[in-house]
């Protein structure tokens, strides 16, 4: 594991969020350090997306404290999160199909020279960024529509890197990808960690989590259900935390298998 700083980049303390009659999050705790990949896992409806949205400023929290580099902060709008240095890559990639790769990378923060788009500089920096992330696409001047799903995902992640964020949130980045593309995205996640970014990775795929994450935070029914160190925890333990029972089909099977091996 890469060196991890003492003060977490982001810490959630007792965060709660309610939608009408539904208590979506209850007293959730989460810490992410620089150079650390934290996987956020849980069943459907466990509150992963809600938690991410509270961090990204889409849903302001009702209770609790969000600490950014040790200081308590308010995140009420997506803009607040962006200003702090939080970049979110959503599941539906949020790219414009009709605009080329350069245009998409710089969408909303175009480089200008005398009020005019500085296409040359944007193109140069795009090529530089894509090459430092080892992203390979046919051309930076073709529309996003021409790219494969994996290439789009890598462009979306590269886009989040432009603002030099301290924390990158990836919402199921490998959900719709093939084997090859998944490996590319996981490579990219590791590169983000090497560059000292903190990463929150939401995934349903245990293999991905085991492959790149340092810690696994499990949510169940809107509450914390344990934070595990990936290196020392078995997949079964994580799954039992997700499903929320030590006595269920999975653990029983694990126990049976364990006995059988003895």
């Amino acid at each position, binding site marked *: 594991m890469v060196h991890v700083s003492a003060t977490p980049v982001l810490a959630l303390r007792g965060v709660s969020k309610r939608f009408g009659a539904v208590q979506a999050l209850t007293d959730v705790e989460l810490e992410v350090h620089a150079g650390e990949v934290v996987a956020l896992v849980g069943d459907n409806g466990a509150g992963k997306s809600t938690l991410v949205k509270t961090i990204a400023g889409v849903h302001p929290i009702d209770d609790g404290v969000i600490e950014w580099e040790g200081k308590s902060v308010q995140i009420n709008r997506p803009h607040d999160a962006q200003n702090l240095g939080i970049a979110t890559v959503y599941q539906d990639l949020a*790219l414009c199909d009709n605009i080329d790769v350069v245009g998409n990378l710089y969408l909303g923060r175009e480089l200008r020279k005398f009020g005019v*788009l500085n296409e040359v500089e944007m193109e140069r920096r795009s090529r530089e960024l894509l090459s430092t992330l080892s992203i390979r696409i046919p051309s930076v001047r073709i529309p996003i529509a021409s790219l494969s799903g994996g290439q789009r995902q890598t462009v979306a992640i590269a886009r989040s890197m432009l603002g030099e964020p301290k924390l990158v949130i990836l919402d199921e980045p490998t959900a719709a990808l093939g084997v090859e593309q998944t490996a590319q995205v996981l490579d990219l996640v590791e590169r983000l960690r090497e560059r000292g970014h903190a990463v929150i990775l939401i995934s349903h795929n245990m293999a991905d989590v085991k492959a790149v994450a340092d810690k696994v935070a499990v949510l169940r029914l809107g509450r914390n259900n344990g934070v595990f160190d990936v290196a020392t925890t078995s997949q079964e333990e994580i799954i039992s935390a997700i499903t929320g029972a030590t006595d269920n089909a999975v653990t029983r099977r694990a126990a049976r298998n364990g006995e059988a091996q003895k």
Partner: protein
Amino acid sequence: MSTDNTSKPILAKIADAPAENPAAADGSVTAVDPRLLVREQGLSGYLGEFKRKMKAGDLGSIPVVLGLIIIWAIFQSLNSNFLTAGNLSDISVAMVGTGMIAVGIVFVLLLGEIDLSVGSVSGVAGATFAVLNVTHGMSEWLALILAILTGAAAGAIHGYVFAKIGVPAFAVTLAGLLFWNGFMLQILGSNGTINLDSEGLVAKLTSYYFSDVAAGYGLAAVAVAAYFLSSFFDNRRREAVGVPSRPLSEIIVRTVALAVVAFAVAIMFNQYKGLPLAVVIFLVMLVATDFVLRRTSYGRKVFALGGSVEASRRAGINVVMIRTSVYAISGTFAAIGGLFIASKITSANQGAGSGELLMNAIAAAVIGGTSLFGGRGRTWNALLGVLVIISIQYGLALQGIASPIQYMITGGVLLATVVIDAVTRKTQKTAGRA
């Protein structure tokens, strides 16, 4: 583009090369994909890219230019007066009113929306000018500016109601169509028609010609030189920082093509009354709007909204502001177009802005190649499209064919165009380009 693959066939997607190279995956320092679209230098590369674009359904302005040539050839064979300097010059002046409105429509279509109110708004602008200037004796310039601002305000209202409240643009602008037509009739009063000063500012918009032959040739020369220099220096900057640039030969070919067209048009105008002021204003507007759309971050935002509203919102684009402003631009150009139309007949009357004007403006934008589906198009499309429509009108008028037939033919052309639009969009999807 990268040079390491130039020995391969032009633009070939190099399918036989391995898609992934494990050695490159780790320490790769370039963003070059082995399947890179390689473009060969020189003319063969240019032709190759042209072929690839045709296959991918990226037709651009090709259909409309072909259509225009066919239409001109047909009318010329029917009546040898069609392709005379006088007739072409008249067409050029007559198209400016509808063309200006079509420029505004291009902006709206880029969002993937529609503005049905432009006809009525253009009528309001003509009437506002006439009432302020003729009836109330206000100075011409002030009346002109107020008339254009009225159009901008009308458009901004439509845009705001659509963007902020979320009423479909179709419904908002349909309401605008009725409201502004009523507004125009109201301010024109019981008389119905206000005649403009035939020597006044607005009348001059379409009646003034730069009779000095130097004006036409000078403008053509300036346009060609400006095009060449901007392409040339743009390329120099690209080469300096090592991003792909166009070969010099291609810039020269393009410049020569532009020069041929520009000087042919200048010769044509100079054979008749000279360079029309209306055409100069129209060209300036086209250059300005094209610049705004393609070279400013505002234009980039308009295209982004046409591509994906959600993506734009997440990128921090103020969706309400951009939508409102695009409708304000549409209203502004409708007003400018309305003034040119009033100028042509030197009066503001009750029929202004009704009838086929709205349909012609929308048809011009679409025929020119602006996609109805949003996100694709240029304001130059408005020029090509309106040239087709007004050519049909003038050609049929020369033959003494009445407007029912005119409507039917224009309708047919519009249908053919939207079919081409829909089909190319499908082709582009299968070619992964939409």
